């Protein structure tokens, strides 16, 4: 288990860092920390790894306070962005290295290294050097090296960024499989929201050093806590509105919309959010929140289609696997509308 308690850190003469981070990764869980460049996710990983020491707060591993321990003493397996394989060592030498520095005898460390190389499907390549491997193979060696000494947790720093798009997808599946197989508590950082949603049991979103939301991918997508999260995860339609009462809002172009009960006060200006796939084209007459619409652009996305619709002066995007040829009306189901402060 990894726990961060009120972690505070900023770089010297700068406000860039992380601020009051509280986060927990349960044993065996896969947590993905996602954020844009400069959001503080790399700093967070370095604080957990022990490359940086927080100015305030505590880092706990399996309930042990490791804040003041060096990175080597924390017993974490780390896979960095560019893998940092030792070029003068063979694959076997690289994977066995953590055991070598811990004093494990050669026979035993080679046996364990070979076993894990077998698990990652690289047993035939134990005698080759890192530069002779593909990007995906290098990544597997890096993961094997990080797992061979049975670390308390695995930290991954944007592990797919060095791979081309075609390899990335299969390596994601492979990583997920390995994580399940070894049952290792894993924290990965990435800027790729799709990667985060796909891999994480839970996903944490960072922005400007602050933790915006930490929840399951589904909850993150369907119930974002604020506009920043909604914008960061997936595509979204935003509509400015004013609260009429606890179940209704008024918009300029779509008229009065029914919404689920909320805590905003009457007269307050809010921003309503609805996902493109939640909008219904040419709805049945009994569905609430209908408005006339005109198609202004169609995009073919393979399995999905996207259409841009004009409702008054408001542009809405709509996504669906099957889309009618002519759209005259759309409906915004109340249960899919989320309200945020403006």
């Amino acid at each position: 288990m990894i726990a961060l308690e009120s972690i505070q850190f900023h770089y010297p003469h700068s406000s860039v860092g992380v601020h009051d981070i509280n986060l927990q990764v349960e044993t065996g869980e896969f947590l993905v920390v996602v954020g844009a460049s400069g959001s503080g996710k790399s700093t967070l990983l370095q604080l957990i790894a022990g490359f940086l020491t927080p100015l305030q707060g505590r880092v706990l591993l399996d309930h042990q306070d490791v804040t003041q321990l060096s990175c080597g003493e924390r017993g974490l397996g780390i896979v960095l962005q560019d893998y940092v394989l030792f070029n003068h060592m063979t694959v076997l030498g690289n994977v066995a290295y953590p055991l070598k520095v811990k004093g494990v005898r050669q026979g035993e460390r080679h046996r364990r290294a070979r076993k894990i190389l077998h698990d990652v499907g690289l047993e035939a390549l134990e005698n080759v050097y890192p530069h002779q491997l593909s990007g995906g193979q290098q990544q597997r060696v890096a993961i094997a090296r990080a797992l061979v000494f049975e670390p308390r947790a695995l930290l991954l720093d944007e592990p797919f960024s060095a791979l081309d798009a075609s390899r990335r997808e299969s390596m994601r599946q492979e990583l997920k499989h390995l994580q399940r197989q070894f049952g290792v508590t894993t924290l990965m950082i990435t800027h790729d929201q799709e990667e985060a949603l796909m891999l994480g049991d839970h996903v944490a979103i960072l922005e400007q050093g602050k933790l915006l939301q930490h929840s399951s991918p589904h909850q993150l997508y369907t119930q974002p806590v604020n506009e920043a999260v909604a914008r960061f995860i997936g595509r979204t339609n935003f509509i400015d509105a004013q609260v009429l009462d606890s179940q209704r809002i008024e918009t300029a172009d779509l008229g009065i919309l029914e919404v689920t009960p909320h805590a905003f006060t009457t007269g307050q200006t809010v921003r309503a959010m609805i996902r493109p796939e939640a909008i219904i084209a040419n709805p049945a007459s009994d569905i609430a929140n209908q408005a006339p619409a005109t198609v202004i652009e169609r995009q073919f996305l393979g399995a999905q289609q996207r259409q841009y619709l004009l409702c008054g002066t408001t542009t809405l995007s709509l996504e669906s696997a099957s889309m009618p040829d002519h759209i005259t009306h759309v409906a915004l189901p109340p249960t899919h509308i989320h309200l945020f402060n403006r």
Partner: protein
Amino acid sequence: MRLITYGYLVYLLAPIVLLLIGAFGDHWSNTLLPEGLTWRWFITVWEDATYRNAMVTTFKLALTTCLINILLVVPLVYGVTLKFPAVVQSITRLLVMLPVAVPQLVIGFAFILAFSTAMLPWLGSPWLLVAGHVVVTFPYLFYTVYADIEASPLKAYERMAQSLGAAEWQRFVHLYLPLVYRSVFTGSLTVAALSIGEFELSNLISGFMTQPYPVVLIQAFYRTTGFACAATLFLLSLALLFSLFSTLVQWRLGRSSSRELPQ
């Protein structure tokens, strides 16, 4: 451009050709070229104990200078690259450069002033000569190794190895030394070549019993032309031998590194 290149080559080779002609000439006085052909000047130089001892001294001196330089530079570059704060790094780099910037005559006088006192009466001792050679050759090994390590992934290796639990000595031995051994070797060849040819400082601080070959060589010019040419050719051969060896090693290391390192 080609003409300039050939002209430069002629300029470089002409003295060597003249030395060769002089060394094999039996007698050379008031003529355009020497008269007769002989080996005897080489034999005379070789049979002269002063020159033979000086050659041995030069070899020992070059070898010791290389070893001491390696022992100093290897850990220093590690420290400068990974341990020292930025300010100390800059100061170290500047200080290391000083022996190149300061004329050797100045260094020689400083040695004479410092080590000819009653408290430090070491002028003329072999170890002071070694110390002098270390001072003047140190920057060449330091900067060869430093430039190599700066371009290497050492910092990333260090961080990764730390996270894997490697102690400092393990990182030094397992990661730093394999990265640095090529440049240590090629840099040491440069140091040896410089030490073998060093005259200015050696002439000021070497003792009568520890004169290296270049210092002894100066006396050869007061003897016959053939003897002087043959004695000079011995030194020239040593320098060429080191140059060839250095080139060969660098070529071999370059080939092996292109096989081992990422493209």
